[in-house]
């Protein structure tokens, strides 16, 4: 496969090396002359010196025949632009962009740049998984389907403790799908009691998490 990588920093350089080792044809574009010289020593003719957001540079790298374009510079605006031009101007379907600041992910999304990979965001998600906030785990996120499945531990001071599910008055889009108790589990009905120590599995429309927090989390534990 012919792949163009834009940005010769740590990410781009390691990526290019691995892709070449996997028998792909790779061109790496780096704008900074000093960094270009360093990368060129290792990757030789696979590297060109130029601004990868300039159309003539992309064309001299042969973007017309590229099957994949991967912008991984340190600037999100550059990565967005390069990805957008690769897809919309050159019709390349496989585009993977690096997002440096996870706050910019929404811009990538808005301008149709998908997938965007943010190392910071990945690490943040791992941290959340490893150190769950107030006993709440994301078991499954289905962004395309707009659904999430959460697992929540019930503590003595949880507003849901010792209540029937019907009493929780859960809105549409939120469903308790099972209760795990004493090493077993069951699918509850409206009359089922939620006990302290239970783990409750809930399926919900993405965005309804605040409702869950309100109904299940002890007040003191809620995110500040």
């Amino acid at each position, binding site marked *: 496969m012919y792949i163009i990588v834009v940005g010769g920093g740590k990410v781009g350089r390691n990526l290019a090396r691995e892709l070449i080792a996997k028998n792909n044809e790779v061109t790496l574009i780096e704008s900074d002359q000093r960094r270009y010289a360093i990368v060129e020593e290792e990757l030789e003719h696979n590297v060109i010196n130029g601004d990868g*957001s*300039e*159309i*003539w540079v992309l064309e001299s790298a042969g973007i017309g025949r590229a099957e994949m374009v991967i912008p991984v510079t340190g*600037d*999100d*605006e*550059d990565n*967005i*632009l390069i990805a957008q*031009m690769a897809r*919309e*101007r050159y019709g390349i379907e496989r585009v993977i962009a690096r997002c440096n*600041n996870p*706050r*910019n992910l*929404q*811009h990538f999304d*808005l*301008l149709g740049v998908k997938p965007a990979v943010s190392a910071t965001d990945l690490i943040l998600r791992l941290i959340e998984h490893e150190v769950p906030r107030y006993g709440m785990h994301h078991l499954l996120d289905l962004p395309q389907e707009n659904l999430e499945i959460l697992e929540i531990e019930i503590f003595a001071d949880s507003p849901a403790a010792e209540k029937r599910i019907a009493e929780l008055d859960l809105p549409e889009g939120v469903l308790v799908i099972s209760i795990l108790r004493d090493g077993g589990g069951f699918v509850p009905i409206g009359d089922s009691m939620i006990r302290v120590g239970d783990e409750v599995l809930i399926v919900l429309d993405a965005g309804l998490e605040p409702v869950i927090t309100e109904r299940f989390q002890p007040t003191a534990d809620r995110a500040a």
Partner: protein
Amino acid sequence: MFVVIAGCGRVGSSIAKTMLDEGHEVSVLDEDPRASLLLDTGLDRSWAERGGSFTLGTALELDALLAAGIDRADAFVASTHGDNTNLVIAQIAQRRFGIERVVVRVLDPARAAWYREQGLSTVCPTQVAVEMLEAAVREVV
């Protein structure tokens, strides 16, 4: 009309001053606190005293754009020193905030031309200069 201008260099600050003089409400955003000095130069009263507003922040940050009032802007000017930044924030203004009058400065003629075809109002000073120089050369000959 309420105009938000992202990027307060020579271009952004000049547009800002003209717009304010013409009686429009103007809000300027720049990441460099010194940029606001450009808004004060050549005038007897400061930008703030004249009723202009200045927000310190990075144009790509949504919070900064919101602080500058992008959500109620009638017109948006992208005039930072980065072509790619301008093209991205202009599309944010257009698609996310539905601003109809969005103007983008793009120094690179090739990118300016392509994004104009995609429906952005790009203004390319380089292209304008090229055309003026060409015309001037013809006059000499």
